[in-house]
């Protein structure tokens, strides 16, 4: 029982981290109907900026406080993501108003390659570390209840809590505020949104900035876990099955999808692994997503796809 719970917790916390990345996809999709292929590249770009500025800023200004360095690096990196959002809107999206989804998708694919290159040109292509003081040692809990207790990674726990808070805040923002409503309006219909006086370009800058913020938080958490390197942008691939499962248009869906995949991966690896010779963790999520595409293509919480003829 203790072992099962340990696996379950591990899965939940890993799942929360997937949700965090999936959230970036959902935000942009909800607000502009664009499936943003560049989300992974944005995570990498933000993490690189964070890691490098945290290293450079103390040198430039001549101080040693880690907290201050991280804080300044976070602010600068966030500002950079806002500038990026503005540039993307100016040079790319504003030219593609009222275009097909597939056109916009291809545009984001281009942005993704560009960002990968730009990030590594500006910040270098080594492996960098982000140290925001995440606790690295595991904790033992419930020693009285189970024999041997439950071993829990503190780092994962903190990360999961941060993700949960972020996700909750964004869900409220979308559902309860007038700005959130304007964002949803733009997602549904560009033309109609313009006709009621919503300026598309400003909304897009906001959305991409918020997605940039989500990418930055994800980049910091994943970066401090795995190190900041090119492969970080591939973490986003893990988020694809999450959004398919949860539905591209649903913030709660992104959370639940992430949790299901996190838990499913871990449990299947432990309990089914022996039948398949192990390594299930790597492909479990994709098979699950494939199954969902066949049975329920809109995902668990996505809006039903109704075509009127």
């Amino acid at each position, binding site marked *: 029982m203790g072992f099962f719970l340990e696996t379950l917790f591990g899965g939940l916390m890993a799942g929360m981290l997937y949700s965090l990345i999936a959230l970036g996809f959902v935000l942009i999709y909800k607000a502009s109907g664009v499936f943003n292929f560049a989300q992974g590249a944005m995570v990498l770009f933000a993490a690189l900026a964070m890691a490098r500025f945290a290293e450079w800023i103390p040198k430039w200004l001549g101080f040693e406080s880690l907290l201050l360095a991280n804080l300044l690096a976070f602010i600068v990196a966030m500002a950079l993501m806002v500038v990026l959002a503005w540039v993307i809107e100016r040079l790319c999206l504003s030219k593609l108003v009222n275009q097909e989804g597939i056109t916009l998708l291809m545009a984001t694919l281009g942005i993704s390659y560009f960002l990968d290159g730009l990030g590594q040109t500006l910040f270098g292509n080594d492996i960098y570390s982000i140290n925001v003081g995440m606790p690295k040692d595991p904790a033992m809990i419930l020693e009285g209840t189970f024999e041997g207790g439950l071993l829990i990674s503190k780092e994962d726990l903190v990360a999961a809590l941060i993700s949960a808070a972020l996700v909750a805040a964004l869900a*409220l*923002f979308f559902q*309860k*505020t*007038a*700005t*959130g*409503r*304007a964002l*949803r*309006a733009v*997602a*549904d*219909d560009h*033309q*109609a*949104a*313009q*006709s*009621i*006086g*919503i*300026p*598309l370009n400003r909304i897009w800058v*906001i959305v991409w900035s918020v997605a940039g913020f989500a990418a930055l938080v994800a980049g910091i958490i994943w970066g401090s876990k795995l190190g900041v390197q090119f492969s970080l942008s591939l973490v986003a691939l893990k988020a694809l099955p999450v959004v398919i499962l949860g539905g591209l*248009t649903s913030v709660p869906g992104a959370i639940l999808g992430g949790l299901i995949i996190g838990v499913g991966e871990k449990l299947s690896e432990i309990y089914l692994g022996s039948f398949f010779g192990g390594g299930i963790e790597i492909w479990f999520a994709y098979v699950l997503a494939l199954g969902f595409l066949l049975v329920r293509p809109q995902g668990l919480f996505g*809006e*039903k796809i*109704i075509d009127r003829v």
Partner: protein
Amino acid sequence: MMNDMPQAVQEQTQGTGRRIGDVVLDLQNISLSFGGVKALTDISFNVREHEIRSIIGPNGAGKSSMLNVINGVYHPQEGRILFRGEERRRMEPHMAAEQGIARTFQNIALFKGMSVLDNIMTGRNLKMKSGLLANALYWGRAQKEEIEHRVKVEEIIDFLEIQDIRKTPVGALPYGLQKRVELGRALAAEPSLLLLDEPMAGMNVEEKQDMCRFILDVNDQFGTTIVLIEHDMGVVMDISDRVVVLDYGKKIGDGVPEEVRANEDVIRAYLGTSH
């Protein structure tokens, strides 16, 4: 012909008790083309305050293009547009909204995932004053504002008699009701000029009667100026103060319904091809 117009209009309005005012929108020699295709050729007409002005014509005559020119979606290559006496420079649709021009679409353009209430609330967008940050955080002022707007939106919901569906996602509503919700969203902006692109297309007789009543009520109670595209000739002749007729992107008739009905060109181009 243009010069006789005010008189004719005056005569017509005496019956209804509405006061038709000065020209609010003046389109002069508008030409619009897409590549080599001419959508509109040298079209001039005006819209007076408080009137219901209809644009009719066979399919492909350029009616929707005309509306899109007024709305700022299309930018004509030639001609002048004067709105409230000021010549309009290059503009975007959201600027038209800022000037008090609201519209509905030929193919319903509602926010399908949202409820009826939320859809109409989006129409209040421009009236919302609190800043983005306050808004995002749902702070005191933004919250108070939200409630004020909600009151206004409830009035519109009552006006359009859609109280019982206010929480329904619009995607689940029948076509006729969706059209009504779209009108509601446009009204929520309290526009001075309302553009309706085939508000009665695809409706049954009863729904058409309802929609006619709403359009006349909007015009009468709120004094909203209405520019309307419609296929149903009966409806157009019944509710319009003045009608402009387009065919192949050219204006072939303009006047009060009786005049238009008697116009030879109109009969040939429009009525002649309609059966």
